[in-house]
């Protein structure tokens, strides 16, 4: 089977509108999470990482779109346009499009929206993005809770290795919305300050919004400077509870084991882990158990939720793209918000952003429905 690579990419976030400038902010420890008071979008004030609307709109205007687009559509289109442009890839019938999102245009479900009801269907979102860029193939939409972003990369690899496409553009995005805020609030899972993954004083998550996009390809001549090879992946279910993670970390353990087996690697070959780390009591504890079962407790590990919040269906891809920059710049990014270990098993949390020679990393994610995904990456250059 041909090797698959992640190549040109973009992060559109509260910390900037391209991957390298976002990474510069991470190196200085800047977080996008802040108190947000915006009655045009939110019923109440919330601690979250949101994309500045004015910047989004002015970036979108430069694309000279002819129709009306929703906020999420603008985010996805701006991010993907930057990735397509940077890649120089011409869209033809051998190029696929995968969209990862949990809730799509959920903000237009309320009756005040100017957009028709059909716009809330995720398939419609797929057509909007497809048509904007004149993709020849229909969009494949993945909606698999909080693992969607990294699962989308695994699925892109399937299509390429099965010979359907030469390359796939993956774009992932989700909004901060009253719908999701109220839902996590009902679980009492929202933090009223910046979140603190793995810390003993963690009290829950912050929500965030991001669009992220990447070119997945087999062609060496289409690789960016930060390109990585996808070595292996796995997505296994806990088969335990629909809204709480497994106490043994079963699905995550199996996902990582499956990825390692495919990559023909051992856990001590992993240079660092970009974990899920939502900063809820149950999630972080579950991860600590799974990583310890795999003897990954000494491997440097971070969660990026303290910078971007939890960006749902975008988080897995966003955090993978940051990992690509970490490898390229040989830099371990500190896990924001962490001071004292607050899980029952040892973990080597990165407390300070430091230079270190890096070749490989593991990305993991877990979500409602008992889903988990793990993927292993190695830098090309």
């Amino acid at each position, binding site marked *: 089977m041909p090797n698959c690579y992640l190549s040109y990419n973009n992060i559109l976030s509260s910390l900037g509108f391209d991957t390298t400038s976002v990474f510069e902010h991470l190196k200085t420890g800047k977080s996008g999470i802040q108190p947000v008071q915006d009655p045009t979008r939110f019923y109440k004030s919330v601690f979250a990482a949101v994309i500045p609307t004015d910047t989004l709109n002015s970036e979108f205007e430069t694309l000279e779109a002819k129709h009306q687009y929703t906020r999420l559509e603008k985010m996805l289109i701006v991010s993907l346009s930057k990735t397509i442009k940077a890649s120089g890839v011409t869209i033809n019938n051998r190029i696929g499009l995968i969209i990862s999102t949990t809730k799509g245009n959920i903000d237009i479900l309320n009756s005040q929206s100017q957009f028709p009801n059909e716009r*809330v269907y995720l398939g419609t979102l797929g057509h909007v993005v497809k048509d904007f860029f004149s993709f020849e193939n229909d969009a494949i*939409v993945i909606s698999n809770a909080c693992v969607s972003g990294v699962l989308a990369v695994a*699925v892109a690899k399937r299509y390429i290795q099965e010979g359907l496409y030469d390359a796939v553009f993956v774009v992932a995005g989700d909004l901060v919305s009253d*719908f999701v805020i109220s839902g996590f609030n009902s679980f009492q899972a929202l933090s009223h300050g910046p979140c603190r993954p793995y810390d003993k004083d963690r009290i829950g998550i912050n929500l965030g919004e991001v669009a992220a996009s990447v070119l997945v390809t087999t062609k060496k001549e289409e690789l960016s400077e930060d390109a990585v090879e996808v070595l292996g992946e796995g*997505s*296994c*279910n806990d088969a335990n509870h629909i809204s709480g993670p497994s106490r043994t970390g079963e699905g995550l353990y199996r996902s990582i084991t499956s990825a390692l087996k495919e990559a023909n690697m051992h856990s001590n070959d992993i240079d660092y882990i970009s974990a899920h780390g939502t900063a809820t009591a149950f999630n972080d504890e579950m991860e600590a158990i799974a990583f310890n079962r795999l003897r990954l407790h000494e491997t440097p590990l971070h969660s990026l939720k303290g910078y971007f919040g939890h960006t749902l269906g975008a988080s897995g891809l966003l955090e993978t793209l940051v990992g690509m920059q970490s490898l390229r710049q040989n830099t371990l990014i500190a896990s924001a918000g962490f001071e004292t270990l607050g899980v029952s098993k040892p973990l080597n949390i990165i407390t300070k952003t430091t230079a270190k020679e890096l070749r490989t990393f593991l990305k993991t994610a877990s979500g409602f429905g*008992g889903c988990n995904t793990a993927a292993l990456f190695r830098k090309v250059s």
Partner: protein
Amino acid sequence: MDKTFHISSYCHIKNNSVSLDGKLLFTSPIQEFTAFVKSAAQQLHTNYAKFYKMDNLSKLAFLAADVLLKNAELPVDTENDIAIILSNKASSLGTDRTYQASIDDPDNFFPSPSVFVYTLPNICIGEISIKHQLHSENCFFIFDSFNADHLWTNAQSLLKRNKAEKVLCGWVDFDDKNYEAFLYLVEENGIIAHSPNEIKKLYRT
């Protein structure tokens, strides 16, 4: 030589009826989904208390999977490596609309966590996995309509790369009052070839 894969069985739930491998198992004059699915679950001996707490999409997917997997007579003493690849058009919109209605009224703003958790389409995969103890690969896709080609590609990829021994595939859509489930099991054993054309044929039966 490359392994070849087959469709060992399939299940439809539509038009107030449940069928397995094209044979009618249950039919009812009840049009309304909640009452229909309750009566189907009782008649088909689902015997699972959690079933009644699920949202409509999960009930639909769960019942179809239960009919198929019970019929497959899976070994009880060993683990079953059955991946789940499901798809639909409406995602979890049925429950999303219920949830939105509950938060639309600021004077009555009491969102329920037990409703919110079902506002993701893949929750039904979790429900099936819990019941049948499947710690296997899963993914939920959204398509405009039933898409045999994409389901086939994903199932083939998992089977050929030994990511799963069998794959439970299909379509489970619940939107407003309309519902339709078509699930099928892919494995080495079986008579019907695993191909996009056969999948399309079975879907239309």
